[in-house]
């Protein structure tokens, strides 16, 4: 990787975060995206789908395939491949750093809400949750362990895999280049796109929530619709 790949101008980050800007595309960065045509989805397209297609979002959107990356899951002493649950479970992913005091907690809580609902409603074994840090230098195994406890994550049901790329370079490859979730910063503070992916058992994205924290509870409604409609 060249040094220039580490440098992201502010516009790129803001574009990914807000999806408001039109123009330059990062779609080429997507790992496994194969387009929307013919993929099976349960949820209807998002309200602003036509406009989202025009923008050509850097992360996989509705109807596109879940990118593949293999990342250590330190609380499980093994590596997890983001696509390993395809055929078996629906999945939710998001990208955070644990020392974040703004949107990250809300992103992780959105996954946690669905986990709680999956336990209460009996679909815990139909879901896998994969929050991923892009700050592995700060987010050690011990920090991640403590963070999951603070967030109220249920470890008993074995559907929550917190992923930690080994190095900042791997984090850049996986989060930014493979998943198209832009971030910049360091030393405990980042600007980053706020993205949650809801992915069905075929590995097709059903919903990409972005542009800020999702409305509280929105993920649960969509997850239930997905489980019931599958």
């Amino acid at each position, binding site marked *: 990787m060249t040094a220039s790949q580490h440098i992201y101008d502010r516009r790129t980050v803001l574009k990914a975060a807000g999806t408001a800007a039109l123009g330059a595309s990062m779609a080429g960065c997507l790992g496994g995206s194969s387009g929307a045509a013919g993929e099976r989805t349960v949820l209807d397209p998002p309200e602003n789908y036509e406009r989202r297609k025009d923008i050509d979002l850097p992360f996989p959107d509705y109807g596109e395939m879940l990118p593949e990356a293999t990342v250590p899951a330190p609380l499980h002493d093994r590596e997890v491949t983001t696509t390993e649950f395809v055929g078996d479970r629906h999945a939710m992913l998001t990208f955070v750093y644990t020392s974040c005091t703004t949107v990250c907690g*809300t992103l992780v*809580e959105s996954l946690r809400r669905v986990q709680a609902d999956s336990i209460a409603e009996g679909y815990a074994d139909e879901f896998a949750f994969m929050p991923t840090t892009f700050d592995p230098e700060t987010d050690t195994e011990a920090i991640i362990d403590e963070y999951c406890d603070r967030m109220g994550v249920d470890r008993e049901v074995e559907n929550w895999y917190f992923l930690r790329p080994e190095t900042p370079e791997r984090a850049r490859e996986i989060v930014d280049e493979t998943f198209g979730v832009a971030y910049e910063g360091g030393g405990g503070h980042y600007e980053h796109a706020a993205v949650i992916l809801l992915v069905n058992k075929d590995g097709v994205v059903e919903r990409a929530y972005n542009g800020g924290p999702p*409305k*509280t509870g929105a993920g649960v409604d969509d997850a239930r619709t997905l489980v019931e409609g599958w």
Partner: protein
Amino acid sequence: MRRRDLLVGAGSLAALGGGAAVAFDVVGSTDESTIGAVDLDVISAPESEADTVTVPEPGRVTFLELFATWCNVCESMMPELAAAHDSTDGDVQFLSVTNEPLGNTVTREDVAAWWHENGGTWTVAADRDLEVTQALDASGVPYSFVLDARNRVVWRHRGRTDADEIAAEIRAAGG
């Protein structure tokens, strides 16, 4: 044009304070700014044995903060809320509401313990079904709201704020 006036009024609430409430009156009451009252589970209340609390309470100004026990910013806000609470009189419904999922990992007892550790002396309740959270169209915590006596949202603020601002917004709403 009227719609635009309303949006301008809503957008400048923080700056205008009481003036914004007047702006709402100018364009007339709107259903979309009025929140229907719901009953929430009380986790702790200083002077009440009731299991539920009606939120927002019609006829009184309401201040409420949505929070979660995992949220460090919410924790750091507790002294500010305590100071704001101390500066209001009894004619204001003042409460904190958690909307985190409660159950096997985080229980209402955990919330009560967090509450007392952080000096909470006013009413704290749980929005288990997200009724209030979704009526307020909220995302994220902490998220502070002031509603006037007719249950209209006259101030909303996501993230950190302080005692002076909260007290000023409560006063501006007539509380």
